[in-house]
C-alpha cells in the first residue's frame, strides 16, 4: 500500500515517516504531497507564536485538552530553531504536552528549523497537509520568536494567536516589529503577575491605532494563565467566535486562497532557481566566473545576463 493511502487512513507511522520525507527533501516528497492534496482542506489551522518564554507550549497543551473534550482530533507541529553552529537541535516543546502522548487523537511532531531550501514555511506547510489529509480536525503550528521566519510560518495558519507575557522586556519591541499585524487573537499569559495589566493596555493601545478606522474588526485581547488554566476556556471560546466571524465575512476563504498563491510562488521560485542552477552548471563554473570578475574581464550583471540569455535560447531551440 502506498504511503499516501496509509496517511489518509490515519496510520501514525506513515504520517510520521511522511514528515521525515518533507524535512529531508526526500525525492518522492512531491509526488506524496500531490497524492494527498485532494484530501486536504478540511482542517482548521491555528498558529501560535510569541517570544521565547511566553508559555506557548503550555498554552498549546491547555488548548489540546479543550479540543479533545469537544471530540476533535488535534495535530501539533512545534518548530524549534536549529543551532547555527552544529546544525543540531533540542526539540523540547513537546515536553509540556507529554500528557497527551498516549492519546490516539493527538499527534505531536517537533521540527527543527534547519536551513531549508524552501524555508521553514515550506516544510511546515507540507507537514500541515499531511496532518490535514490524515483527518486531524485541528492543526496547531507553534513557533518560537517573532521574526521574519515566524511571520512566514504563521502564513500557514487560518488564525494566529500571538502570546505575550509580562516581564520579558522585549514585548514593546515585538509590537514595533510589525508582529502585531499577524496576530488575530492576543493572549497575555501569566496574567496573575502584577504587570500583566500593563501589557494588555499597551497591546490595546497599539491595536487602537491599527483599527482607528474600523473598530468593528477589533482583535480580542485575552488574559490567561497557561500554568493554572485560568482564562483558557474563555480564550478557547473567543477563538471559535473569531473563526466564525472570519468565516462568515469571507476573510478565512480569502486567507486560504492567499496561502495557496503564496505556496505556488514559493514553489515556482525554488523550482526556477534550481532549474537555472542546474542548467548553468552553476556550482562547477562558479570558480572560473569569479576569476573573470576578479581580473575585471567581466562584470557581474553582464556575465549573468549573458549566461541566462544563452540558456533561454538553448532551451527554446530544443
Amino acid at each position, binding site marked *: 500500500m502506498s504511503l499516501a493511502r496509509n496517511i489518509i487512513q490515519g496510520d501514525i507511522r506513515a504520517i510520521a515517516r511522511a514528515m521525515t520525507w518533507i524535512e529531508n527533501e526526500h525525492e518522492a516528497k512531491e509526488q506524496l504531497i500531490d497524492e494527498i492534496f485532494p484530501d486536504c482542506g478540511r482542517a482548521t489551522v491555528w498558529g501560535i507564536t510569541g517570544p521565547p518564554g511566553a508559555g506557548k507550549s503550555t498554552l498549546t497543551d491547555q488548548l489540546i485538552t479543550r479540543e479533545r473534550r469537544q471530540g476533535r482530533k488535534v495535530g501539533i507541529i512545534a518548530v524549534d530553531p536549529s543551532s547555527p553552529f552544529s546544525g543540531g537541535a533540542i526539540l*523540547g516543546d513537546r*515536553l*509540556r504536552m507529554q500528557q497527551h502522548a498516549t492519546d490516539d487523537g493527538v499527534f505531536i511532531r517537533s521540527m527543527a528549523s534547519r536551513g531549508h531550501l524552501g524555508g521553514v514555511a515550506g516544510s511546515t506547510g507540507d507537514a500541515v497537509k499531511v496532518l490535514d489529509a490524515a483527518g486531524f480536525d485541528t492543526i496547531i503550528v507553534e513557533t518560537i520568536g517573532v521574526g521574519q521566519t515566524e511571520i512566514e510560518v504563521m502564513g500557514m495558519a487560518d488564525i494566529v494567536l500571538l502570546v505575550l507575557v509580562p516581564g520579558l522586556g522585549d514585548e514593546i519591541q515585538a509590537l514595533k516589529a510589525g508582529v502585531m499585524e499577524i496576530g488575530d487573537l492576543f493572549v497575555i499569559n501569566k496574567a496573575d503577575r502584577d504587570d500583566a495589566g500593563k501589557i494588555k493596555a499597551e497591546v490595546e493601545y497599539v491595536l487602537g491605532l491599527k483599527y482607528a478606522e474600523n473598530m468593528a474588526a477589533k482583535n480580542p485581547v485575552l488574559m490567561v494563565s497557561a500554568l493554572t488554566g485560568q482564562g483558557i476556556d474563555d480564550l478557547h471560546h473567543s477563538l471559535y467566535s473569531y473563526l466564525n466571524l472570519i468565516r462568515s465575512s469571507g476573510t478565512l476563504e480569502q486567507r486560504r486562497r492567499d496561502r495557496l498563491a503564496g505556496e505556488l510562488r514559493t514553489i515556482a521560485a525554488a523550482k526556477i532557481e534550481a532549474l537555472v542552477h542546474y542548467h548553468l552548471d552553476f556550482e562547477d563554473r562558479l570558480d572560473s566566473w569569479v576569476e573573470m570578475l576578479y581580473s575585471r574581464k567581466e562584470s557581474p550583471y553582464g556575465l549573468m545576463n549573458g549566461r541566462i540569455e544563452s540558456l533561454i535560447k538553448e532551451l527554446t531551440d530544443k
Partner: protein
Amino acid sequence: MSEKKKLEKALQEWEDRVLKKTLDHFPERRETFTTGSGMEIERLALPDGGDADRYTEKLGFPGTYPFTRGVQPTMYRGRFWTMRQYAGFGTAEESNQRYKYLLGQGQTGLSVAFDLPTQIGYDSDDPHSVGEVGKVGVAIDTLRDMEILFDGIPLDKVSTSMTINAPASVLLAFYIAVGEKQGVSRDQLRGTIQNDILKEYIARGTYIFPPKPSLRLITNIFAYCAKEVPQWNTISISGYHIREAGSSAAQEVAFTLADGIAYVKAALAAGQDVDTFAGRLSFFFNAHNDLLEEVAKFRAARRIWARVMKEQFGAKQQKSMMLRFHTQTGGSTLTAQQPDNNIVRVAIQTLAAVLGGTQSLHTNSRDEALGLPTEEAVRIALRTQQIVAHESGVANTIDPLAGSYFVESLTDRIEQQVNEYLAKIEEMGGMVQAIEKGYVQKEIQDSAYRYQREIESAEQVVVGVNKFQIQEEAPKDILKVDPALRELQSKKLAAVRAERDQSAVDAALAALRAAAKDTGINLMPHILEAAKRYASLGEICNVLRDEFGEYRESIIL
C-alpha cells in the same frame, strides 16, 4: 585599648555569657585535649592582634551571631556530629534489619531512604510503580509497613531522618502513629523530614502538587509541629541535590538559601511568627572533593543565613538565626571505575564536612556508582567517619581553618557570589518565580554542562576515569532488589485493606478532602487520622491530587 586586649575582652565575655552555660549542661568529651604527640590544644584559636571589631563582626565566637565558626559553643569538643547513614531498600523487614545492624555498629541516628513510588505518593500496586518498588529505598504503603520498619527500635531513643518531600506530612503521620503504638509521646519524637519541595522542582523530580498547595502543606507542618512535635526538624532545606545536578558550590548555597527564604516568607504569610518556626528549620548540603572550597562554603552559608534571618526577617532568638545542617558526601563524585578509590574521596569529603562544622553526616559507600551499597561497603563508610572523629584530631578544636588567609578570602568570595544570586532572585519576585521561569535550572545546567565538557577534554582530571585508567574486571557482589517485590508488597497492601475498618477510612478521607478545600485548615490532624485508620499513602495522596492538581515539568534545556 589595643586590638589584642579588645579580643581578649570579647573572648572573656563569650566565655562568661555563652560558653559557661553550655559547659554547665554539656561538659566536653574530655577534661583536656591534646595533639597526637601530647601538646595541649586550645578550644578556640584566635587571631594574634589584627582588627578585633572586624573579627567579631565577620567571624564572632562559636554559638554566637553570625555563627561563621559554628552553631554550638563547644562544637565537637562537646559531642561529635551525628553519624547518620542513609539506608533503606526492599521491604520494611529488610530495612529494619539494616537499621539494627547500623545501630549495632555505632551509628547514632537513623536515616530512611524511601523508594520512588513512596516518594511520589503511589502505592506499590499502582501502575506507575512498575519496576520501582523497593529499588532506591524501602516501600511504605500503610502504617503497617512503618510499624515493621521500626519494630524493636524505640522511637524515644533514636533520632530519625526521613528523605521524604511531597508526601512528607503522610510519612510524619505514620511515624507519630508508630510512636503512639510504642507508647512514645509526640514531644519525645526527634528527627527530620526533608519536606523541601522547591528543590524537587529544581533538581530531584519527586514532586506531586503545584507550588501553592505544596507550600501550604509545608507551613501546615511547621504550625502543627511547633505545638505537637516540638523537637522535630520540620524541614531540611537541601542543596545536596542541587549540587548533584551539577551546580557550583556558590550556586548550591545560593539556591538552597533562596529556597529557605521562600519557606520563611510562606510561613510568615500564613500568619506564623518567625521565632516560632525558624529554630526548627535545618539544612542539608553536599561535600565535594575541593576541600578548602567546601569548608569555605559551609562557613559562608552560616554567616549569610544568620544575616538574612536577623536583618531581613527580624528574628530575635539566636536559634532562629543558626544554620544547622546535615551533610552527605557527593554521590556524583564517585566513580564506577576503580571503586575502591571512592573510599579516599569520601574521606576527603568527610574532612570537608567536619572542618565546615556539620551537625550530622552521611558518608557514601564506595559501590554507590554501581548499585545499592552492600553491608561491607556501608561499614567502611561509617568507619571513615569514626576515624576522622577519633583519630584525626580535627574535632578537638573549633573551626580549625579560621584565619587561614585563603579560607577566609574564599569564604568572603562565596558569600559575595551568593548575595548576588539572592538579590537577582529577589528581583525576579522570589524563588518560586525564578524556578517557574527556569532561571535556576538553567544556571545549574550550564554549570553541569561546562564541568562535564571539562571532564571529556580531560581538563578536569577524574582519577580512574579520564586518567590513570586500568583494565578492570566487572565488579561482583552487587546488591539487588528482588524484582518480585512489587507483587509481595501489593499482597501485603491488599491484606491491610481487607482487615481495616473501611467505613472509618472512608470517613477520614472524606474529612481530609473537605479540609483540603479550605486553605484556612491545617491538614496535619486529618492526615494523621487517615493514617491511623490504615488509609494507604496512595489513597491519601490521591485525595490531595484531586483537590490540588499535579505539577508537571515545564522547563526545557
